[in-house]
């Protein structure tokens, strides 16, 4: 029990160092105010202890300026910490443009991963060091939460939509992955690890896995299998919107609203084609609800994105706040 007894978590990303810095400064502030109050309370309680039975306290006037000082000082400090924290938060939830996208599915009680090259893993995710990696995540059942303490990242994994998180490991090693959102009987067994490797080792590891197809390749095959191209083909006479070049664009909808084409929108359009119909098109497309697994859905979406040149590098795809909620 005494061996391997850390008091501070491992750091394996730059974000981790930034979060720790914030933590230390905040701890110092907290310590200062706790000690200040504790010292004053104890000092007063001793210095002004009751000396005779009938003694009463001295009445003094309320000092308005004191009230202002001790309201404003904490407020200013807290606003400072707020800005600092918000800066880290925005960075953590805005995947950089050049991040490589991996797909994560949570289900009771395991993690499933797919690499862009097509390799699949369960509970353990191998990644190269020094590479920005974006995880696009969804759940097949209840809410889970992807949490790697050494990276200081966490994001809930929701059924029915994509959320994402990104990281860039700056050292090799094996780092524990927890499910942080209570998800049922084996919640505490829904653990895994992220194994950070040297790039050449990672290449070797990938090659040994011999995947059949890349994610986009699988998506293309699905596109053909479900004959999506009978309607979605690059011609203005087509009965469905042209997918080439559409990613990241804002399109007008038949109800007068508009929507930015991102992963969550394409997802919805496949499962519920009439929910947000693009202006000028008839509600002809059938639903694919129940016919595609989460993984296939993601492959299909990845393929659609690959039809827009440079879209893989666009930042807009899925941030933590998806299109559904952004107006909130």
């Amino acid at each position, binding site marked *: 029990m005494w061996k391997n007894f850390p008091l501070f978590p491992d750091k394996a990303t730059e974000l981790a160092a930034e979060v720790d810095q914030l933590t230390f400064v905040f701890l110092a502030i907290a310590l200062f105010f706790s000690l200040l109050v504790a010292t004053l309370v104890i000092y007063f309680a001793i210095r*002004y202890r009751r000396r005779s039975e009938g003694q009463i306290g001295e*009445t*003094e006037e309320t000092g308005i300026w004191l009230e202002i000082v001790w*309201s404003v000082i904490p407020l200013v400090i807290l606003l400072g910490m707020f800005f600092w924290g918000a800066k880290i938060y925005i960075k*953590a939830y805005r995947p950089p443009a050049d991040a490589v996208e991996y797909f994560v599915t949570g289900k009771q009680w395991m993690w499933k991963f797919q690499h862009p090259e097509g390799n699949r893993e369960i509970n353990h995710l191998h990644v190269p060091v020094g590479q920005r990696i974006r995880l696009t995540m969804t759940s097949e059942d209840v*809410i889970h939460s992807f949490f790697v303490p050494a990276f200081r990242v*966490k994001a809930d994994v929701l*059924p029915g939509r994509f959320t994402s998180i990104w990281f860039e490991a700056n050292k090799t090693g094996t780092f524990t992955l927890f499910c*942080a959102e209570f998800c049922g009987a084996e919640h505490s067994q829904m653990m895994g690890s992220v194994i950070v490797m040297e790039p050449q080792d990672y290449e070797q590891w990938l090659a040994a896995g011999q995947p059949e197809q890349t994610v986009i390749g699988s998506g293309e095959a699905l596109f053909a299998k479900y004959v999506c191209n009978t309607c979605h083909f690059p011609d203005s006479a087509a009965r469905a919107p042209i997918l080439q070049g559409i990613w990241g664009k804002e399109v007008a909808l038949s109800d007068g609203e508009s929507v930015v084409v991102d992963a969550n929108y394409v997802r919805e359009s496949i499962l519920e084609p009439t929910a947000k119909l693009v202006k000028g098109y008839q509600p002809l497309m059938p639903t694919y609800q129940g016919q595609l697994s989460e993984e296939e859905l993601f492959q299909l979406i990845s393929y659609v994105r690959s039809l827009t040149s440079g879209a893989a590098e666009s930042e807009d795809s899925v941030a933590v706040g998806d299109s559904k909620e952004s107006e909130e």
Partner: protein
Amino acid sequence: MQARRVHYLNVDYGVKSWLLTKDHKRIAILYLVSISFFFAIGGMMAALIRLELATPAGDLVQPDVYNRLFTAHGVIMIFLFLIPSIPAVLGNFLIPIMIGAKDLAFPKLNLASWYVYNLGAALMMWALLRGGADTGWTFYTPYSSMYANSEVILTALGAFIVGFSSIMTGINFIVTIHRMRAPGLTWFRLPLFVWAHYATSLIQVLGTPVVAIAILLVAAERLLHIGIFDPALGGDPVLFQHLFWFYSHPAVYIMILPSMGVMSELITAFSRKRIFGYRFVAFSSLAIAVLGFLVWGHHLFVASQSVLAGVIFSVLTMLVAVPSAVKVFNWTATLYKGSISWETPMLYAIGYVGLFVIGGLTGTMLATLGFDIHVHDTYFVVSHFHYIMVGGAVMGYLGGLHFWWPKITGRLYPAFWSKISALLIFVGFNLTFFPQFVVGYLGMPRRYHAYPEEFQVLNVLSSAGATVLAVGYLLPTIYFIWSMRYGERAGSNPWGAYGLEWQIPSPPPTHNFEEKPVVTTEAYDYYTLKEKRVA
């Protein structure tokens, strides 16, 4: 004095006289019995949880059982103990007396609220006997609505019904405080305990219906498969979290505000001094109640809320910290040049201030977005809210109980043992929960039945602390019961405190006041009180 004086306790001994009483003081005692019982049950659940967590392997109970234990612990402690504790026991007993009234505005409603509370509690206990729920007290969807294989509906229905009892108490307090104050008792002469309860009641009345609706929607989805929260049925799982926290964050203030009111009473009484910044302390309660409704999204920072929403909720949460800080500073300033005695209730008050400061500061840390990503849903959060709920609300409740016990029963409890228990509770509490901050920052997620070995040392410390804490809680149970028969007689004002409740005999007569009191001084005006005595 020697002739047998009739008071609210000895006026009638029949069971019926208790079960059908409309006396706010007797109803307070009924509540005291009920919530003490549920505190004991919730405490036993906590003991089992800490026992399980003494070792990394999940070896004491099955995972399913563990999940039911922490759910029951949370549900019981929050809905059956913390929310009613100070308002329904101390508030019920004291508010009419503090404002010079002979009862609450609606005595029958008051009694009804106790029955409604017990009905809801009975449903929850029935659910527990049938195996209990395993969703956590937060009932997150779609797990609770579509996946959990446990007594979710019964448990939630129990919480739903208990919610009505707190609405009833809230309405009763609001009307009473508006309409029944003694002549001369203006708003700014009210004891701060009354102000705190006024703010609490507002939250109870405005917030509880929202959580009631959320609970009904979960039941509807579970029973009728209407798609509300489960995406497989076309629902939105995060909607539940918004509805739930819209009430449950303010509910945190329902639990903490009354204890702040108790603090203001204790600190002034044992400093024999008017509170520093009366209006600031009074209005900070209202500020907390209002701002408390605008911060629920801080529970959703990693739950796919938009970045913008996260930023807004973070800054609003920082604002709530200010009125809380104002209270702490004013309490501290009240001690300055006071006449301070170190009696048991004051020990609780001093302990409370320390623990509340730690709880509050860690709360502002959690409101800081970048920090929260890492510690959200870890033991850091568990520790933070126990500092507020146990270090704050429970310490406040116990401090208040020790302060007003002589008034309620007419008897004194043993000073020595009560000081020992205050010390044990303070030490045991810190030993239990401080290590959880560390283990949370290390990354241990909450609601884990088994955990990696490197977390064991801290968990063992925590479990050891829980043992000390248990002894600390057991002692008052024993000496309070002992004191009812063998305790020294208290007299009307054993602490030499200000306040209408100390001007009537202990225990008070059924109608509280022989003649309607007239208030001519500010609250905590010890100076005038002394003059009068000398005169």
